[in-house]
């Protein structure tokens, strides 16, 4: 190798390495994103990978953000204000007057009506939250009057929550000629009225949004918002450590073992975000021997949540003993409580149920499964051991998400990790525990609970409602169709100085959905 060649290689290496990236302009935010959206038309189907881009491009009528986990209510996005009639059956929304679509056309109440009518006609997922609508009228460009079929206290909060997933408002002047929201040029070239405008989507690489300077509120602090598709969590983490990203969402969360070290790092804020979901186990009451109350009770004595928290979450997830997430203080019935860990009691109950230990030390077999979430996997591994302690021959069956989903919807499981949702309106109890609940996977049926649940939904008086949900929590704890185990606290990492990311309390009532970046502020 001669000297010239070496010099040439050296020069090339310098060019490649020394032309370092320009210093990050503070008004550009790159967010690592773990998978690519299907399309940028979010109303057609629930597409978790599209929630973030969609929620920043489009507007919603009313929304919730992570404030709901600590008891905050929903708030207006496109709707400036709203009022309910005395009989609770008419809701009048007043829209932001200066709202414009990204192409400059003003947003009117006709757009909202058109969007909801299309969703209902096509039976898109959000139709479930609009089905109580009898009719919609638009007396002027900024007023929408919604007539309900029946009084429903959960109508506004549930609608506000689901808006973040599949309830975006679409521009009538662009979509009117299309049949549905899944065809035509605007599917992947979206026109919304949100705080960010769509700029480009490079497949496999990123989606870039730019600030909407004509936004009806003060424009956001971030000028360019880029979602970069990252497939490897380790690399995303390495880049966060190297300072490329100021924010690492929970999808790339570090392991729990690492958390104390990160919490001690003065440059990083570890956000443990409260939630209105829990991690629990669903007990398939259609299967033997889980159809027996004593067996289900025994299992609730056999789980040691404290040691599960230590083993699975390094002690950073709080055990949950009530039929609700403990952050949901408004609706919590402190009296309805699952028992503390008591191995002897569990064994005693199983003996009483006639399921004595066999020659091999086991009473019966059970299969434990769950969705492919890392937290569920960790918890279920511990659960298997704890059940084996009391003589239940439990084994873990892991599946990919869609297989698991099919099994649990068809009731082909014994015990499964699950994520019951308690808000933003407690009407979600019916979803999980009413006999005809859409997510009642346990086969649980309690006519009394069905009756109270239906009545609670029609009740506007807070105190009266609270009593009913207290009762429902008592029934669920007594009948044990499910056992609540942990309060969910998803971890996210934020570089010190940045504020307003959805999991941070500084974003509550401001971020516009839990996928919104509207309230993000760079360090001053």
């Amino acid at each position, binding site marked *: 190798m001669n000297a010239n060649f070496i010099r040439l290689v050296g020069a090339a290496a310098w060019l490649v390495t020394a032309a370092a990236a320009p210093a990050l302009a503070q008004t550009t935010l790159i967010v690592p994103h773990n998978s690519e959206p299907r399309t940028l038309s979010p109303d057609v189907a629930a597409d978790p990978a599209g929630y973030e881009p969609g929620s920043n491009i489009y507007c919603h009528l009313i929304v919730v953000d992570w404030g709901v986990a600590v008891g905050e209510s929903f708030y207006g996005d496109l709707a400036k204000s709203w009022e309910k009639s005395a009989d609770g059956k008419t809701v009048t929304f007043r829209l932001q007057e200066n709202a414009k679509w990204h192409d400059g056309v003003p947003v009117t109440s006709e757009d909202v009506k058109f969007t909801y009518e299309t969703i209902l006609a096509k039976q898109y997922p959000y139709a479930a939250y609009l089905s109580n609508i009898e009719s919609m009228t638009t007396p002027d460009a900024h007023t929408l009057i919604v007539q309900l079929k029946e009084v429903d206290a959960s109508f506004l909060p549930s609608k506000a929550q689901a808006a973040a*997933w599949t309830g975006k408002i679409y521009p009538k002047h662009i979509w009117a000629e299309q049949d549905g929201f899944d065809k035509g040029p605007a599917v992947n070239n979206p026109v919304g009225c949100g705080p960010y405008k769509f700029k480009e989507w490079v*497949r496999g*690489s*990123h989606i*870039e949004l730019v600030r909407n300077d004509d936004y009806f509120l003060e424009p956001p602090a971030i000028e360019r918002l880029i979602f*970069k598709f990252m*497939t490897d969590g380790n690399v995303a983490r390495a880049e966060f450590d190297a300072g490329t990203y100021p924010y690492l969402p929970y999808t790339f969360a570090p392991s729990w073992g690492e958390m104390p070290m990160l919490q001690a790092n003065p440059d990083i804020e570890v956000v443990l975000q409260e939630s209105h979901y829990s991690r629990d186990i669903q007990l398939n009451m259609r299967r033997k021997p889980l159809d027996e109350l004593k067996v289900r009770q025994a299992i609730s004595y056999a789980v040691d949540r404290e040691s599960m928290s230590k083993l699975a979450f390094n002690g950073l997830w709080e055990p949950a003993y009530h039929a609700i997430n403990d952050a949901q203080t408004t609706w919590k019935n402190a009296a309805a409580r699952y028992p503390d860990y008591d191995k002897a009691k569990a064994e005693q109950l199983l003996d009483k149920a006639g399921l004595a230990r066999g020659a091999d030390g086991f009473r019966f077999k059970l299969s434990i499964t769950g969705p492919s979430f890392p937290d569920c996997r960790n918890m279920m591994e511990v659960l298997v051991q704890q059940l084996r302690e009391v003589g239940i021959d439990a084994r873990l069956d892991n599946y*990919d998400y*869609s297989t698991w*989903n099919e099994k649990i919807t068809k009731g082909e499981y014994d015990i499964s990790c699950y994520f019951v949702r308690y808000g933003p309106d407690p009407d979600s109890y019916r979803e999980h525990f009413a006999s005809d609940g859409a997510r009642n996977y346990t086969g649980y049926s309690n006519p009394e609970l069905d009756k109270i649940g239906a009545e609670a939904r029609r009740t506007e008086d807070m105190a009266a409602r609270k009593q009913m949900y207290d009762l429902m929590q008592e029934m669920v704890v007594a009948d044990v169709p499910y056992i609540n185990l942990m309060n969910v606290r998803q971890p996210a990492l934020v570089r010190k100085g940045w504020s307003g990311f959805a999991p941070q309390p500084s974003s509550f009532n401001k971020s516009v959905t839990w996928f919104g970046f509207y309230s993000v502020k760079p360090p001053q």
Partner: protein
Amino acid sequence: MRLQQYILLRLFYLIPVVLAVIIINFVLIHLAPGDVAVTLAGDDANPEYIAHIRALYGLDRPFLEQLWTYLGRVAQGDLGISFRSREPVLTEIMNRVPATLLLVGASLSFAVLIGTACGALIARRPGGKLDTVVSVLAIALYSVPVFWVGLMLVLLFGVKLRWLPVSGMYDLMGPRDGWGGMLNVARHMVLPVLALSTVWIGQYLLLARTSVIQALSEPYITTARAIGFPERTILLHHALRNAMLPLVTVLGLQMGLVLTGAVLTETVFSWPGLGRMIYEAILTRDTPVIMGAYVVMSFTVALASLITDIAYAAIDPRVEL
């Protein structure tokens, strides 16, 4: 004329091969558990909407009918529509081909050049110190999983030294066109190419070493030495040329996998290529994309083996087609 006939015949053989691949894939994918329609409709969908989706994508038809429709479409060059994005599968694949070709092409060229050169070099004194050290190193490189090499490179050059970018194909803040854009891509290529070629270098090195050693023991080398050719000419011109055949075979096999051989590397470095697209399609049950990718793969494998055979004839006059 004979060559043309041969190529036509071989191209004709492609049809049953690809047909068999399609049918096997179709059956395997449809044996997998999990309801695609439920996955597509999303978490909050009601049964009515799921039924609508099932009908929309033809998932409610009998299995044989689905297979027959698919075969008919493929025959016309239509690989179907992606379940996820609703874009034509062929467009999706073609969008990703350039990034993969760039990555794999660069890595393969680098690996073949370095590996063959080093292999030939150490073959001159088999059993010597250099040979022992390099061979052991090559075996080590060949045995290391590529994603591990990738992660180590990320840690060293991306996090500790911060010399090189570790994800994506270009800097989103930097230029994308002209010389600046090329430099931007070049910087992003360094680590993935290094990771991918590391593993291949070991392979080509060992292969080149073995076949050059063998060639050097042939009588014609002794003759060449007796004539008095310089050792350099003997090694490069006489021995290496004859040692090329096994190298071309392996290269040919790898050319067939050129489009998909980089799944792990692309995943580690978030490279927007075909391998990563297939990986994501598998995770999201995007059946048309998975099958489309397999069709394209089986075509490239078959084509590459054809090209390899033709290359044989060009390199070795003893081989007749």
